[in-house]
């Protein structure tokens, strides 16, 4: 059988090919910078070469002399526009052209606009700034950092979770570890470059830009430009990879909109790969201090996790992964604390499993150390610390299939063949190591709207302002409609990525499938109710039957009795050409303001650790084999197995692909990815895809994804747990643990590089 299309098991949907697959293989999928736009002018950014200080003078004469130059937007030109706001919708509060203050290296100082791309680039490179420069603070341990408690600094991180008396329990523990871990700066680097194309038709502004949040951006851009949100349209039909980077809007969008207004013609600015490192967000570097105490029987009695995260001076961006690590196992007592370390850097932002990637890496590396200290098998160690309820609020898990994940992954991986002795497994010149780790990701859901129309011809049009960032959400939304309306997927058109569509929440936090499918389900069920009522009404083709006895299949309403009526005939009897339903879904526990907030682009998230009745998480177990050359210490990952349980799987093909991509991300985090920061200048050094290493085809060999069946009706009406961010959570620790098993060298600072193993 084709590995890409796993056979569905219980509560898993068919592996239908993506509905937009043909567009993607023929070059007809139009990403925002591909959308045809007449009479376009090209914009190019000029950015600061210092990280801290003030721009005292900008010399524009050489740039203005470039033939074809149309305009330069710089200081003073944004004064009539409001500054950006930092939050879920805005990447930073820094208004780069509102203020001559430089907060970070690579900050926008001007936008050159010209008739051609070449002329715009030439002009931008001729813009010369003079600065009043101050010595910048780059990162941890740099002079001038300010460290503040993170709790309460972000609505997403309210408190440092704790339970019991950690100090007493740790003091009494028979076996303990006390270690420090770190993760580096990382940039998303989606292959699609960041771009903004803006044009005005009278007072109406249209922006083509890759976005994970078209509704939020519409509202935020309108606020900055001081116009009615109804006059702003954000269009983003296909997004060339996002991973969080296209969630918050950056200051560039308003600058390009202003340029288009000044010029009276469309302006497109495609940010260079190098400039993106400073003008977009990134995953900040983190540090961790973990202490675990346990009895000789392996039961954990004490767990402490302290984290430090870098952020910018003006914005308190927090990830705070202790909310998840503090609830992972049956610890007994828990102590956590997260600190922010402010430096002269651009504001960080969401990057695929923002809290879990760094924090669970540290926890799962520490769990392996603890298993070694106890002389216990690492799988068994996790098994005996499985909690009945989460340790902080003592709430039950809505579902937790971690043990099943470990069983199935261990079996497929061949964990029984692992010789527990360090360095015992070899194959010629290669030291072989095997490691494992747990993946966890909170299951959240948000309000969402959708419009579904079923026509008398049997076609379905589905509209929802969500975003196809590669997850397959277009396909699974269509699949949900197909299932509920009994219409084949070929007859369903799915429109997404446009702020003029019914609003959907930001495509972040792995909420899209659950939120969108719950809204589509609601719209389809409303259509069903109308159809069934008409069919069973007096004089209808199925008069006398009750609604709940009906099903829709193959264009027919089928009653339990076997009697059936064509949908087409029922619609004709109703004297309508189509039934269209606009549904607004709000999750259980939503506030009365929830739907209003959806339209305002600030949707409420529910689930995770926030609900009263239970905590909601998806889990997985990952097993990795590493091979390390005994002479060169070259590190390879020839084999990786991950088993994941995430409630209902809408489509086993797209689910497997997302998890696979996540696992490979995890390999990248373990072995490749790090943005190097020059401490002298607070500047990113490796600002391109040659020197910022990501996994390539040759890095990946045998990869297996197991979709563990799980049913969870508590999470949302669709029964779906998000899995787009789950796959890369456990991987880096599993690799580090396998490296230890192969070599006896414990690497606590990512990424793991050859030089760390040359001991």
């Amino acid at each position, binding site marked *: 059988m*084709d*590995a*890409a299309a796993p056979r569905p098991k219980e509560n898993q949907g068919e592996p239908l*090919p*993506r509905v*937009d*697959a*043909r567009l*993607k*293989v*023929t*070059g007809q*999928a*139009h*990403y925002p910078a591909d959308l045809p736009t007449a009479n376009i002018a090209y914009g190019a950014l*000029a950015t*600061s*070469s*210092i990280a801290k200080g003030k721009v005292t003078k900008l010399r524009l004469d050489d740039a203005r002399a*470039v033939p*074809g130059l149309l305009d330069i937007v710089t200081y003073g030109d944004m004064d009539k526009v409001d500054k950006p706001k930092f939050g879920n919708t805005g990447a930073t509060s820094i208004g780069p052209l509102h203020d001559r203050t430089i907060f970070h290296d690579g900050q926008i100082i001007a936008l050159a606009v010209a008739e*051609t*791309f*070449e*002329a715009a*680039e030439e002009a931008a*490179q*001729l813009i010369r*700034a*003079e600065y009043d*420069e101050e010595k910048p603070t780059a990162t941890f341990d740099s002079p001038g950092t300010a460290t503040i408690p993170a709790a309460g600094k972000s609505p997403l991180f309210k408190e440092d979770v704790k339970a019991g008396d950690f100090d007493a329990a740790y003091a009494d523990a028979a076996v303990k570890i006390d270690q420090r871990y770190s993760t580096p700066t990382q940039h998303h680097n*989606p*292959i*699609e*470059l960041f771009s903004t194309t803006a044009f005005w038709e009278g007072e109406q502004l249209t922006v083509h830009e890759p976005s994970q949040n078209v509704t939020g951006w519409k509202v935020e851009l309108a606020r900055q430009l001081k116009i009615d949100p109804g006059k702003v349209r954000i269009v983003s039909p*296909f997004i*060339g*990879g*996002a991973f969080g980077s296209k969630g918050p809007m950056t200051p560039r969008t308003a600058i390009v909109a202003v340029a288009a207004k000044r010029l009276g013609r469309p302006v497109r600015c495609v940010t*260079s*790969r190098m400039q993106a490192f400073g003008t977009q967000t990134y995953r900040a570097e983190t540090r961790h201090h973990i202490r675990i105490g346990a009895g000789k029987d392996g039961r954990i009695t004490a767990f402490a996790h302290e984290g430090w995260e870098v952020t910018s001076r003006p914005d308190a961006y927090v990830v705070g992964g202790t909310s998840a690590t503090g609830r992972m196992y049956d610890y007994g007592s828990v102590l956590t604390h997260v600190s922010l370390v402010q430096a002269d850097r651009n504001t960080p932002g969401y990057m695929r499993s923002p809290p879990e990637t760094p924090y669970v890496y540290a926890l799962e590396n520490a769990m392996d150390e603890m298993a070694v200290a106890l002389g216990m098998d690492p799988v068994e160690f996790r098994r005996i610390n499985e909690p009945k309820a989460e340790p902080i609020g003592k709430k039950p898990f809505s579902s937790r299939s971690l043990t099943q994940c470990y069983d199935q992954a261990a079996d497929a991986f061949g964990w029984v063949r692992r010789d527990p002795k360090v360095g015992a497994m070899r194959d010629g010149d290669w030291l072989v190591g095997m490691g494992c780790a747990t993946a966890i990701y909170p299951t959240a859901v948000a309000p969402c709207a959708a419009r579904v129309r079923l026509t008398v011809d049997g076609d379905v049009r589905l509209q929802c302002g969500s975003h196809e960032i*590669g*997850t397959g959400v277009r396909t699974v939304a269509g699949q949900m409609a197909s299932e509920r309306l009994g219409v084949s997927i070929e007859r369903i058109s799915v429109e997404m990525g446009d702020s003029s569509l019914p609003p959907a929440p930001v495509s972040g936090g792995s909420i899209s499938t659950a939120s969108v499918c719950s809204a589509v389900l609601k719209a389809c069920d409303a259509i069903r109710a109308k159809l069934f009522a008409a069919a069973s009404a007096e004089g209808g083709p199925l008069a006398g039957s009750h609604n709940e006895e009906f099903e829709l299949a193959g264009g027919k309403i089928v009653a339990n009795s076997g009697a059936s009526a064509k949908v087409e005939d029922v619609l004709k009897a109703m004297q309508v050409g189509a039934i269209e339903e606009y549904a607004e879904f709000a999750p259980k526990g939503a506030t009365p303001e929830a739907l209003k907030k959806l339209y305002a682009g600030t949707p409420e998230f529910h689930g995770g650790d926030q609900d009263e009745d239970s905590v909601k998480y998806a889990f997985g177990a990952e097993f990795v084999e590493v091979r390390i050359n005994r002479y060169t210490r070259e590190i390879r990952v020839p084999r990786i197995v991950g088993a994941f349980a995430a409630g209902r799987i809408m489509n086993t093909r797209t689910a*497997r*692909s*997302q998890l*696979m*991509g996540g696992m*490979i991300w995890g390999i990248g985090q373990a072995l490749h990815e790090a943005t190097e920061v020059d401490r002298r*200048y607070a500047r990113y050094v490796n600002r*391109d*895809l*040659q020197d910022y290493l*990501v996994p*390539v*085809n*040759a890095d*990946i*060999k045998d*990869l297996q994804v197991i979709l563990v069946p799980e049913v969870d009706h508590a999470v949302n009406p669709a029964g779906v747990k998000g899995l787009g961010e789950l796959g890369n959570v456990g991987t880096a620790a599993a690799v580090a643990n396998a490296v230890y098993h192969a070599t006896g060298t414990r690497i606590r600072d990512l990424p793991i590089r050859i030089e760390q193993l040359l001991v």
Partner: protein
Amino acid sequence: MSQPSAPFNDGLSLSRRKFMAGTVSAAAAAPLLASRAEAATPVTAEPKLRQPVVTSLRINKQAYELSLDTRTSLLDALRDHIGLTGTKKGCDHGQCGACTVLVEGKRLLSCLSFAVMNDGKDIMTVEGLASSDGRLHPMQQAFIDHDAFQCGYCTPGQIMSAIGCVNEGHAESENDIREYMSGNICRCAAYPNIVAAILQAREETKGA
């Protein structure tokens, strides 16, 4: 530290404009071979620099005659001047592979090649693969069958590169495919599916 960093003036005291002018005047036939010394010679050809050059390209079996800035990359010519946006820009530095096209049947990074350097050449892009009746090239179909993409942005480059890889004879083993497809980054990381797709389409592609 008072000037913005720019790839063409770091350490060279030389603007991109002058660099290009110098190279065009000194060695029009091989502009990238100009030495630093040549490039630094006083600029005399500047007025000519931005005069468009008429360039003939044969793209997907159709002839185009374009008047282009000499600095226009083949990638930008395809996207901005011809409207063939299937070929993608991912880095503009030849590091990601998203802009891969076939020139005279061989894969080429279109961002690293000026359009004028391809005068008279036969170019194939992703838009030219399917037959006129809509039948997909076997490699396109294989990419669908094996879900060899997620966001789809690198996909045109992956498919063009895959066809080139097969035609080069570098798709004979899975290891070869992995190695010779490593110039095409897929950030969604569909790599195992890309390998499976190439294996499926290999024999048919050889005959295509």
